[in-house]
């Protein structure tokens, strides 16, 4: 086998593999709008405490770590809460259905506390925040697919008074 032949074949194969990888599904493109990795980034289920203040943050599977977007949301909430000092809130922690019931109760509590701690570092007093976990008992989306599940992994800030 001559060198030129080898080179030609290598070139052809490279072209072939590049072409194949270009055949990405179009679905993923629209999914990327709503999820980043495992975390929901859409606005479907989001409500607002006030104009421009989303009421909830989302989590990855089994995680209670706050994403950049979540921290951004929570800062907005903190600002709003500092401006309305008579308001108290309840942070509701939730989990998706893909886990055991009791562990999910604990996970929801962990997620709500994660948000609470962040609000506290931005000046909201602990006495104004209480926490409750609903585990997987109160999903916002009844679907059985990854997108639905990602919408359910959340911590929601609810006005208590």
């Amino acid at each position, binding site marked *: *086998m001559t060198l030129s*032949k*080898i080179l030609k*074949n290598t070139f*052809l*194969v490279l072209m*072939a593999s590049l*072409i*194949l990888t*270009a*055949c990405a599904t*179009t679905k993923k493109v629209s999914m990327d709008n709503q999820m980043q990795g495992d975390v929901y980034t859409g606005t479907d289920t989001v409500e607002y405490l006030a104009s421009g203040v989303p009421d909830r943050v989302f989590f990855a599977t089994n995680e209670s770590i706050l994403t950049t977007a979540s921290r951004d949301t929570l800062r907005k909430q903190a600002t709003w809460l500092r401006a309305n000092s008579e308001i108290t809130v309840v942070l509701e922690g939730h989990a998706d259905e893909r886990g055991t019931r009791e562990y999910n109760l604990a996970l929801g509590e962990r997620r709500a506390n994660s948000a609470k701690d962040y609000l506290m570092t931005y000046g909201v007093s602990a006495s104004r925040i209480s926490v409750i976990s609903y585990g997987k008992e109160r999903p916002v989306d009844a679907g059985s697919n990854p997108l639905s599940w990602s919408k359910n992994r959340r911590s929601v800030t609810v006005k208590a008074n």
Partner: protein
Amino acid sequence: MNRNIIISTGFHFIIIMITTLSLPFLLKTPIDLPPIISIELIQISDKTSIPFAPKAKKIIEKIKKEEAERVVSEQAPPKKIKKEKPDAVPLPNEKIDKVKKIEEKKQNPEKIETEIKQVSEFEKKELFDPNNIAALIDKSKEDFAETSKTTNKVTQSQDRNAEPSGLSLNEEDALKAQIFGCWSIPLGLPYNENLLVRIKLQLKPDGTVVKSEILDHVRMNKPGQGFYKVLAESALRAIRLCQPLRVPTTGYERWKDLQLNFDAREMLEG
């Protein structure tokens, strides 16, 4: 969207064309298959204990000729001429075939031959030929050692005596197949315990049971071994359900006392 599909289809077509033109260096190296070894499934012959061959020499010669004749034994006075009867036990239905295959795996073909060699001791005429007897005794001593080795491998019971079963393979298969069908193994048994029940039977020539005795009956009432009683009862039920047992039509003296070793372990361990 459509444009993408067209471009994609076009390039896919190009790729297919390219590969059909067999890019040389994509050729797979030929797989080196090992040469096929032909295996022959040897049918285990149905030789059983030969009664009393007239001359030991003759028997040894017959083995060398390799026939598959069946012989049914019967203990009769020494002067009787060796009989050859076709095996009277009813033959293959599917169950027996399947069971036979399992038996083939277990059985050591050597076993049969040693049986035949041993039996030649019954020969009484030859007693007066010291040389022959000397040869036989030496052989038999070896054979004994061999048989005890093989039988230890095959059986699960530890008390088993060194002699192999007196039933021909076909006779044994027939009886086993019958009892397999009758034995309802209690599903609730603990699968990690000793599940062996040995039952000694006294039979009538037609296969009905005169007396049955559970050999480890002391275990029946031991605390913590409650399942043993259940297992033993299921074995007894199987025997009762299967009466009359599928016994050979001849050689009553040989099998009138029969011991059945029920072991549920294989079925329950799954």
